[in-house]
Every structure is written in structure tokens, then in C-alpha cells.
């Protein structure tokens, strides 16, 4: 950005005023127009200067689409109270360009009106009514809004002191954005927009053919370019770095976080989208769309709900028809859930992590204690649940692999702090409790009973035992895996005695319960400490909060390990500090066996996508054997599928990895 401290401005000379006037330029007061050297009058034509205007050196060219270049300068525009940087091109401003500080080499062309009014806040301070349309969980928008901050403010209303302080922090950050002048960042590109009012535009941003942008901020960075494209109408918004909002999207009181994609006429109101979210075609209303919330299809309405690492099938819908005193939705799909085509859930409801919801659920339920479950509505709209059905499936394993690979965020500051692990103390802890609950239900029910009720969902009695088995096996596999991975990492790097290998960082924290704070996993105690620090005032700015959260993230692996140590004792019955080398070698062998079994179950699940049922419709107009040939031509062979190859490779390499660890263990005996 060019400003007085960087640039020496001077008044225009009489000869320059004459030359500019000859080129159709006018000014109410030429003395209010100050320029930097060199001034090239040929770079101006038909410009109306109004108020205090500062002009940088308008030399050289500005690069535009398709590798073309256009000369810097100001042509056919009314410029009011603006500071224009070096090498800028402004052309064809229909009404006026007013109240902007325009960074070097920016391009503003074919805009109608572009103005900043005094005291504008650029979307900062707007409060989105998330989760409940009628309010009660408002989240203030501000440039540094993160998924973690928003989660705490939105969901933790029961901690009044905490939320008051956080709101104070957020509102202060929002107030700091208030300015009398808007910004157009260095190298930004603003073309073909009829109306821009009170909108900040970050460096290198591309605003191309948007329809109307009012009271907002387009954060951008040369390493994380943000695009606002064709036909977008946005009011009271903030769009973060590296995000694309295009295709006639409509935003109102909405925050779109880093690395998101919104377009194809998607509309969002009172909603928050965080890292790598995607919204196309459908509608979001009062939604907390945590990281990786994805909705791609028409007729899909997300309303009044909390989502993260979520995939919405076409026609997904939710509502709450019970309220008479104003809307109360309170839907919560915990991380990793999917909803099938035309599924419906009556809010309030809470779905445990990594579950799949199918059908029309017209009765509320809470399955938080039963992760990885299959939830299908029966004909009466009741939820029928199969516990732990998705523990060893292609979808679950693929999700865990793909999310880190699909993190589109770039640039210097990634605000949302993410933990991608599918199996973690959060989900495994739920399985520990889920197994205990199902076991209790199983023991307490007579064999003549067909189904039991669990949190409003129906479970067939025979599946209670299945659920216990699946959860128990998954807990054991996870714990053994963590032990194995620790050995594999530390035997090569750290070395030392078993006790030393298994010791946790002294600063690690252990809590039985873990929480998912907007995509960041942490022990409850860490959250309590953070919360207390906010209430006590030792965290009083958004930067301090972010630093504290990042510090917690740094301990994620060691906190996880401490949880694993304790849970191993509870679930597997051994104290890691009291094991012999031979016992540990035995656990490695046990892990190898269980992990191979797990991977084979995943492959078995993958095979379903190549079975008879999956081949229906292939080989149209061909002979009988053309069906399989057509299928292979389109889908390829099972063994050649990239995911299948990846899992197979892991399966095959596992014994050697386990042997290596056992040998290294023998060496320290």
C-alpha cells in the first residue's frame, strides 16, 4: 500500500494542470490533488478528481487475464478521496471510486460504483445467528475468525464468563477493522463489478464480474489468492484467503474461511464455513459448517446445524417442526458424518462421529456415544441404528487419508487448527463408553425382546453384542497401533530402555474425555485451562488465543500418547511401565494380526463395489459377457484400484515392519 510515509507527494504544477485539463481531466480543487514523480499526463484521460487525492507514479503496464498487459493510468473515472499506488490502472468507472487506498499495480476496471463510507467496518462486527435462526448463539465476524473461536462462542454458552470474554475479544478485533478508507491490496484485480460498497480487498485478490459486494472483506495473499467471481452477491460477509466464491453465489451475514469453494448459485445466510468447505447449488441457513463441510447438490438444505468433515448427499434436509415460540434447531452431526440422498433429520438431534444417516428421521435422537454407526429411518421415521458399522470400511479409511491431502490452504497463516485423525482419543474414547453402554443394555434385556432403545434410536437386540465386539476390537487395535507406531518412531530415533521409549512428555496432559473444538482435538483439561485463562484475563486478544490454541496443538501427539498409556491399562490390562521386552514383542505380533484383519475387512468392503450388484446397468446393448467387459473398461479391475493397491501394499508391508520393530526390541534387551 502506498502512503505518505513511503511516497513523496507534491502539488501539481501549472503546466501539468494544463496538460491534464487538455486530456479532459477536471478537479474541484487542483491543490487537493498531490502526485508522486514522475507524473506522465498521457496516463490520464477524462478523470474527475474530487477531494483529497494522492497519485503514485502511474508507469508501466498492469497484467490482465490471458497474459495481456494494459497501460497503468486513470481513464474515464471519477476519483474521490483516494490514494492510488504506483503502477495502478483504473479505467471506466461508471459512477465514482471513493474512499479507497489502492495498492501498487492494482487494476480497477469497468466498475459502477466503488465506495467506502466513513467508519466502515468491512463485514467485521456483523453477528451471524448460527445454529438457531432466532439467535442465542451469535458469532461476531472478524478477519481473524477461526473455527476454534467460533465453536467456543457458539457452543459454550453455558459458560457465561467465558463467552462474555470471548465476545469482548471478538468485538474488539472487529472494531479495530473500522476505517474511513477501504483498501485494495497490491496487485488486486477488480473488474466488471456494478457495485462495491464498504469492501476491503486484499493483496492479489481477483474480483471478476461479481454483481454486488456490500460491507465485507475479501482477505487475500499472493500465496493464497482469493477469487470472487461471476454474479456473486454478497452482503455482510468475510471471505478468507485462498477461497473461491463464484458462479452467482449469494452470501448474507456469512463467513467463508480459508481454502473454501462456494459457487453454482449456492446461497448462505447467517452461516460460517471453515477450512476447505465446499458449497454448491444448495442452501445453508444458520449453519456452523466446520472444516471440510461439503455440500454439492441441488435441493440440499443445511439448516441450524453443526457439521464438520461432513458430506451432504443430494436433497439432504433438516428442520424442527416442534417449536411454537420461535425456531430452535440445535442439530449436531459430529465430525466425519455423511447424510444420504434425500435424508432428513428432525432437529434437535445429535449424531456421533463418523456415522451415516439414511432415510427420513422424524423423531429426535442422540447417538453421540455410538460412533461409526449406521442410522437408517424405519417407515415410522424412527432411527434404527447398527453400532460400529463403519469402523472398517472403505469410506472411513479413505476419508482419513484424503483430508490432509486435500487441504487447499496456503499462505503464511492458517487460522483453523485441524486434527485429521479418524481414530483418536475422541472417537476411541466414545467407543470405550459405547461398548460399555451396549454391554449393559445387552445384559439387561431378555432374549424375547426384539429391539432396545438407545438415546432415541432403536437397536436390534442381536446387534448389541455385535456392537460390543466391534467397539472392543477397534479400541484394542487402536491402542496396539499407537504402541507400535511409537516403538517404530522412537526405536529408530530416540532409543533407550522400554520405560524411556514409553514415557510421555512431562508437559503432556491426560483427560478421559476429549473434545473436538471446531476441528481441533484436545483433552478436556486443556480446554478447561484455556477457558480459565480467558476468563481470568490472561488471554485477552485474538492473537493470544490463537497462540494458546497452537500450543495445545503442539502437544496433541503427546497428549494422545498419555491417553493411550492410561487406556491401555484400563482396556488391555497392562501397565506400559511394567512390561518385559518379550511382552512388548508379543503386543507387536498382536498388532500385526489385528491390523491385517482390519485392512482385510476394509478390502472386503471395497469388493462390494466390484460385485454383481455394482455391475447392474453395465454393458448396455451388448451380449451377456459385455457387462463385465464394460464394467472393467469403466471402473477398472479391483486389484488396480489405487485405494485397493494402497491398502494391499500396507497389508503386505506390515509383517516386515513388525519384524523390524521386534528385532530392534531384541537388540535393547
Amino acid at each position, binding site marked *: 500500500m502506498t502512503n505518505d510515509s513511503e511516497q513523496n507527494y507534491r502539488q501539481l504544477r501549472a503546466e501539468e494542470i494544463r496538460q491534464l485539463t487538455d486530456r479532459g481531466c477536471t478537479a474541484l480543487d487542483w491543490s487537493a490533488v498531490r502526485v508522486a514523480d514522475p507524473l506522465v499526463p498521457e496516463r490520464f484521460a477524462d478523470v474527475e478528481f474530487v477531494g483529497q487525492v494522492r497519485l503514485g507514479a502511474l508507469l508501466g503496464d498492469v497484467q490482465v487475464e490471458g497474459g495481456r498487459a494494459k497501460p497503468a493510468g486513470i481513464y474515464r473515472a471519477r476519483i474521490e478521496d483516494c490514494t492510488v499506488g504506483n503502477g495502478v490502472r483504473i479505467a471506466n468507472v461508471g459512477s465514482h471510486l471513493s474512499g479507497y487506498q489502492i495498492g501498487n499495480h492494482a487494476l480497477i476496471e469497468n466498475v459502477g460504483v466503488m465506495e467506502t463510507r466513513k467508519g466502515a467496518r468491512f463485514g467485521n462486527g456483523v453477528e451471524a445467528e448460527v445454529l438457531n435462526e432466532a439467535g442465542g448463539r451469535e458469532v461476531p465476524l472478524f478477519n481473524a475468525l477461526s473455527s476454534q473461536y467460533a465453536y467456543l462462542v457458539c457452543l459454550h454458552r453455558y459458560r457465561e464468563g467465558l463467552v462474555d470474554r470471548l465476545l469482548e475479544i471478538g468485538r474488539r478485533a472487529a472494531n479495530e477493522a473500522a476505517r474511513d478508507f477501504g483498501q485494495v491490496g497490491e496487485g488486486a484485480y477488480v473488474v466488471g463489478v456494478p457495485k462495491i460498497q464498504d469492501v476491503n480487498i486484499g493483496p492479489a485478490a481477483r474480483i471478476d464480474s461479481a454483481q454486488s459486494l456490500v460491507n465485507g472483506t475479501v482477505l487475500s495473499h499472493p500465496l493464497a489468492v482469493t477469487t470472487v467471481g461471476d454474479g456473486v452477491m454478497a452482503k455482510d460477509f468475510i471471505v478468507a484467503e485462498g477461497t473461491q466464491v463464484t458462479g452467482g453465489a449469494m452470501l448474507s451475514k456469512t463467513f467463508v474461511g480459508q481454502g473454501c469453494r462456494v459457487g453454482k448459485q449456492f446461497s448462505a445466510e447467517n452461516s460460517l464455513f471453515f477450512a476447505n468447505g465446499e458449497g454448491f447449488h444448495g442452501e445453508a441457513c444458520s449453519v456452523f459448517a466446520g472444516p471440510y463441510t461439503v455440500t454439492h447438490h441441488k435441493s440440499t438444505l443445511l439448516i441450524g446445524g453443526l457439521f464438520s468433515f461432513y458430506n451432504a448427499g443430494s436433497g439432504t434436509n433438516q428442520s424442527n417442526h416442534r417449536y411454537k415460540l420461535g425456531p430452535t434447531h440445535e442439530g449436531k452431526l459430529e465430525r466425519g458424518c455423511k447424510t444420504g440422498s434425500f435424508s432428513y433429520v428432525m432437529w434437535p438431534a445429535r449424531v456421533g462421529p463418523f456415522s451415516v444417516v439414511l432415510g427420513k428421521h422424524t423423531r429426535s435422537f442422540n447417538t453421540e456415544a455410538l460412533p461409526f454407526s449406521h442410522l437408517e429411518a424405519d417407515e415410522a421415521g424412527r432411527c434404527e441404528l*447398527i453400532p460400529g458399522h463403519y469402523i472398517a470400511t472403505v469410506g472411513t479409511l479413505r476419508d482419513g487419508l484424503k483430508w490432509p491431502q486435500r487441504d487447499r490452504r496456503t499462505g503464511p497463516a492458517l487460522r483453523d487448527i485441524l486434527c485429521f485423525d479418524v481414530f483418536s482419543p475422541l472417537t476411541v474414547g466414545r467407543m470405550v463408553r459405547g461398548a460399555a453402554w451396549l454391554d449393559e443394555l445387552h445384559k439387561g434385556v431378555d432374549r424375547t425382546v426384539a429391539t432396545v432403545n438407545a438415546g432415541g434410536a432403536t437397536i436390534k437386540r442381536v446387534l448389541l453384542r455385535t456392537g460390543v465386539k466391534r467397539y472392543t476390537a477397534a479400541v484394542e487395535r487402536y491402542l496396539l497401533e499407537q504402541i507400535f507406531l511409537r516403538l517404530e518412531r522412537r526405536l529408530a530415533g530416540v532409543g533407550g530402555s522400554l520405560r524411556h521409549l514409553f514415557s510421555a512428555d512431562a508437559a503432556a496432559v491426560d483427560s478421559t474425555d476429549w473434545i473436538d473444538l471446531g476441528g481441533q482435538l484436545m483433552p478436556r483439561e486443556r480446554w478447561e485451562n484455556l477457558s480459565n485463562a480467558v476468563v481470568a484475563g490472561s488471554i485477552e486478544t485474538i492473537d493470544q488465543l490463537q497462540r494458546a490454541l497452537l500450543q495445545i496443538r503442539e502437544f496433541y501427539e503427546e497428549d494422545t500418547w498419555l491417553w493411550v498409556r492410561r487406556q491401555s491399562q484400563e482396556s488391555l490390562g497392562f501397565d506400559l511401565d511394567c512390561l518385559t521386552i518379550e511382552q512388548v514383542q508379543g503386543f507387536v505380533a498382536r498388532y500385526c494380526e489385528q491390523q491385517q484383519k482390519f485392512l482385510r*475387512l476394509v478390502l472386503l468392503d471395497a469388493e462390494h463395489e466390484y*460385485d*454383481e450388484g455394482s455391475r447392474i446397468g453395465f454393458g448396455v446393448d451388448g451380449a451377456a459377457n459385455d457387462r463385465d467387459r464394460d464394467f472393467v473398461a469403466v471402473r477398472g479391475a479391483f486389484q488396480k484400484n489405487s485405494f485397493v493397491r494402497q491398502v494391499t501394499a500396507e497389508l503386505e508391508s506390515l509383517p516386515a515392519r513388525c519384524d523390524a520393530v521386534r528385532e530392534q526390541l531384541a537388540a535393547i534387551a
Partner: protein
Amino acid sequence: METANRVKRVVAETLRIDPERVTDESRFVEDLGAESVQSIELVAAFEEEFDIDMDEEAALQVKSVSDAVKFIEKYL
């Protein structure tokens, strides 16, 4: 013979189909219309009926009634 009859009864009850449709040769998916989520219900129902604890990986690879009978008999 007794095992086969019990298997067929459990299959008919679990898949909610006419017991007469269930034959030795019936394949769960192709002939009886079992969906993937019902496979796990079948395994659970067999475990309860015969009071056995089956290996899930092996059990899910059983595709027909006659194979199920042979598979279960190994546990009895």
C-alpha cells in the same frame, strides 16, 4: 439337517422373507436381496441362534445358505 433348518429360519426372519424362498442354494445378496447392512445382522443372528462367536472377516465372506451351514457347523 437341524443346523440347515435353523439357518434357513434365521435367514427368513432376519431378511423378513417367506421361509419357502430360502433354499440350500440361495445366495444372500443375489437371490434373497440381502443388503450390505443386513449381512452384519445375519452374522449377529447366527451367533445368537447357535450361541457361537464367529470370526467376522470369515463370516462376511459366506455368500450362500449352504456355505453358512458349513461355516457354522465348524463352530459347533
